[in-house]
């Protein structure tokens, strides 16, 4: 059943790229024929990669199941970016052909689909995954078959793979600056912290780092409250009452790594129990424009989120990016229509695909080893208005950090930002075990998880 579903998705995606491919050049006044001809092989499944056909890339995002809510828009923005590159002449005189598969929010299926992309479709690169558990599931596949994965979501760090490029934030590009902001006078000078999360790997690891970080800043054990709830938890009465008690006496902030769905009941409960953002601000790492689109944002107003991109960023680059997205949504007739928004992982996907394309141009080949060597030299003018650099050593992006306050319309007011992009720390310096580890894929280290260089001369 999964196989046939995948085939249907493949056919659909080909049809979609065919449709949109036709209309774009008409606007730009480019010859329409080449575009059609290049897209045509998409409908005939060509198994082997040759130097003249289109360049295949895999899109590995859940289009059904619980994660579909978040991941569908990443698939959409990936298709938009590929269309954009194709419209500008493609790569090495060839067109890019997206191969969309649906791992259906099923972690083992992610590995299966990744294998399929690498062996059957022979994709040059794959853009995909959202949850850390899905990334961990495909990691051995990409390493064994020497594929390239671009992972676009903020995550817990403590990883650097030869085969993965991380275009989302590491903890020091999101969580740590957010906590520093909360501790600052401007952010309310919080002295007590509630670390509240859903019970899985990302919140657990992030909170472990934050525990060490807070203690390094002199916050006492008694002033940290760490709480977890199961997936899909919807009754936050007890926890909010506890936060209320805990917040008495010292300025308190909540650091929330609650997963998407549980956020609505949590914020609703905060509002109903009268805990205002001025009293106890909640900073969330998983709440963005896309998550706020589906809900009534009034109870969330004034609470914070930390990201590397917001749709409300006031830069010419972002304006163009948002306009491009809106136009694409309209043209491709995506569900949601004019309510669709851009968000951080979408920007990360956009940057990732462009940097990969640049690296292919530089390498003059789609060969994984050649592209990997070239990608560390790429910078890309991102919608946030910075020249974003891929770090050749640890395979992470240098990213600016923003903190936004939620507005009633589901957008963010930016209240704090870094002056320039920050380099990612794949291994947290605050966890004693990790502090010793080095992620450096250049000579003589050539290692993502070592305490000593691989090559010693």
């Amino acid at each position, binding site marked *: 059943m999964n196989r046939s579903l995948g085939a249907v998705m493949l056919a659909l995606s080909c049809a979609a790229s065919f449709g949109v491919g036709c209309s774009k050049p008409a606007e730009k006044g480019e010859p329409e024929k080449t575009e059609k001809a290049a897209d045509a092989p998409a409908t005939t499944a060509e198994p082997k990669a040759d130097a003249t056909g289109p360049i295949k890339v895999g899109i590995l995002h859940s*289009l*059904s199941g*619980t994660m*579909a*809510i978040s991941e*569908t828009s990443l698939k959409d923005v990936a298709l938009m970016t590929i269309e954009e590159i194709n419209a500008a002449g493609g790569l090495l005189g060839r067109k890019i052909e997206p191969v969309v598969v649906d791992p259906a929010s099923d972690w083992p299926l992610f590995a299966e689909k990744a294998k399929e992309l690498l062996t059957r479709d022979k994709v040059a690169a794959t853009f995909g995954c959202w949850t850390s558990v899905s990334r961990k599931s495909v990691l051995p596949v990409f390493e064994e078959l020497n594929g390239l994965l671009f992972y676009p979501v903020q995550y817990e760090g403590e990883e650097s793979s030869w085969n993965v490029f991380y275009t989302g934030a590491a903890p020091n590009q999101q969580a740590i600056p957010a906590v520093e902001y909360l501790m600052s*006078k*401007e*952010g*309310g000078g919080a002295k007590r912290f509630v670390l509240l999360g859903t*019970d899985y790997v990302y919140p657990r690891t992030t909170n472990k780092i934050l525990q060490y970080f807070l203690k390094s800043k002199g916050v006492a054990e008694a002033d940290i409250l760490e*709480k*977890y*709830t*199961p997936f*899909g*938890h*919807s*009754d936050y*009465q*007890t*926890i909010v*009452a*506890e936060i*209320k*008690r805990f917040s*008495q*006496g*010292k300025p308190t902030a909540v650091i929330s790594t609650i997963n998407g*769905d549980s956020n*609505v*009941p949590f914020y*609703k*409960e905060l*509002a*109903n*129990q*009268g805990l205002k*953002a*001025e009293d106890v*601000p909640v900073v969330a790492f998983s709440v963005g424009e896309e998550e706020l*689109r*589906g*809900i*009534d944002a*009034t*109870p969330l107003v*004034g609470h*914070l989120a930390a990201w590397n991109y917001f749709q409300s960023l006031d830069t010419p680059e972002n304006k163009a990016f948002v306009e491009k997205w809106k136009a694409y949504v309209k043209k491709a007739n995506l*569900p*949601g229509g004019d309510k669709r928004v851009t968000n951080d992982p979408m920007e990360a996907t956009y940057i990732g695909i462009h940097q990969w394309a640049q690296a292919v141009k530089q390498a003059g080949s789609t060969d994984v080893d050649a592209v990997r060597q070239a990608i560390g030299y790429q910078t890309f003018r991102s919608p946030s208005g910075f020249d974003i650099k891929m770090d050749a050593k640890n395979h992470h992006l240098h990213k600016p950090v923003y903190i936004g*306050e939620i507005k009633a319309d589901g957008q963010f*007011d930016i*209240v704090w930002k870094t002056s320039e992009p920050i380099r990612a720390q794949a291994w947290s310096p605050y966890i004693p075990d990790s502090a010793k580890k080095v992620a450096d894929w250049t000579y003589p280290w050539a290692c993502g998880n070592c305490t000593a260089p691989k090559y010693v001369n």
Partner: protein
Amino acid sequence: MLARWLLVVVALVVPAVAQADAFTDALGKLASEDLDTVRSGVQEIASSGEARALGVLHALRDGKLKVDGETVVVEDGSKWKRASDGSAITPAAKPRKVVANNAVRRAMAPAIARLELTSKDVGLRRAAAEELRRGTPPEELAPVLREAYKTEKDPQTKASLELALADVDLASADSAKRFEAVRILGDRGDISFKSKLEPLVERDADGNYREKDAKVREAAADVLSSLRWKELTNRIVGDVMYGLSLGSVLLLAALGLAITFGLMGVINMAHGEILMIGAYSSYVVQLLFQQYLPSSFDMYIFVALPVAFVVCALVGILIERTILRFLYGRPLETLLATWGVSLALIQTVRLLFGAQNVAVTAPSFLSGGWEMLEGVVLPYNRMVIVFFGALVVAFVWVILTRTRLGLEVRAVTQNRNMAACMGISTARVDMWTFGIGSGVAGLGGVALSQIGNVGPELGQNYIVDSFMVVVLGGVGKLAGTVIGAFGLGIINKLLEPVSGAVLGKIIVLGLIILFIQKRPQGIFALKGRAVEG
């Protein structure tokens, strides 16, 4: 009049700042884009004590204060006024809003309260005094508070001011004043004073008490022990109330299943999806209200209830007529078929409404809460759901025991063959029972839409809990379902603070397994032939 009052206070308190240009300077700071400057601007406006200050701060609070170039202007409908003197102005460009963040807003509330302390409106004064009491008032505010305390007539405002002053006096150098402050705080006995009194009984690094006077220390320790006791009892009451609330949610989710599974014996895996359809019905009704009747938007919930009931009942009847009636007495096939139906329903909703969650806005009268005891806030929506749960139980009970259909349902449940012999059309009864069960699930869906997410997977989150409640309560007994739901809710909420939400859930599951081992028929056992058959 107000202006004169303010001037009197200002003249008494801060004569030096009472120049007009202090206010203008402060106003200029609001035009800044630097949030820290804006924040100090707010504080300076408040301490300027001028009559127009309050208007400016209110405009800022309501988001009506804008910046036109360098000038701070107030939006008044479609007109614009200068914030400095209220004269009309036509802004050159589109004015931008004065930037505010939590720090600015945090400065705003006490600033407004400080100015409203001298308002003529008793309500405003009460609120202002309460606001100032809530935070620890800064030293410089003490003279303002003392002055207001002296002239205040309203006892409630006076009491709040007294507490605020006691708070200030806790740091006084005079031990008699400190003692008096502890006494005042102790008389009021709010749990929130705990953190203020604790430093008085603490020792510093050298082992000496921070509070030198033993009398003050003893008084503080006394007050603290009574506050701790109060906090504990409030917590337990709170947990029980939260448990009742969780129980009512479980009850509403499970009640439909208690009919379709409990009475009819259909292992209905699509039950969760019926809940989901109920929630989506309220979403659609809400959309229609937004479009056509925005003025009476809050009333949508009353229309959503019957709509959800009818829609879900129809879907239930459709499922029963087309699929289930061919499968009675074959539980395994029923399970698979209803599971298939549930997947089909999820996908249908995804195609119709998208995979995203949809926004169901709670009516305004359901937001907010009532502070039953200090630290125990009962949100209105939860209270209404408890009440609504009771109504739905009553509704189901009336149908089952006071109508002919109910009589037939019970007859068919107890002995299908005998009922058929007595001339009851069992097929028709089956159809209506399933329809009513689904309709009741739809009502549950409307309730769930008010507290959680509405998305295609909504049902998946409740299906396990629903089965748990019905099985625990005893299949086929309404009272069992009610007691099962509230029992689970309360046990869950009493365990949660001790063990955490994750472990709490596991413990509850463990307890249920043990219970079912001991008593497989559930809390209430059904007597009759159905048990053997």
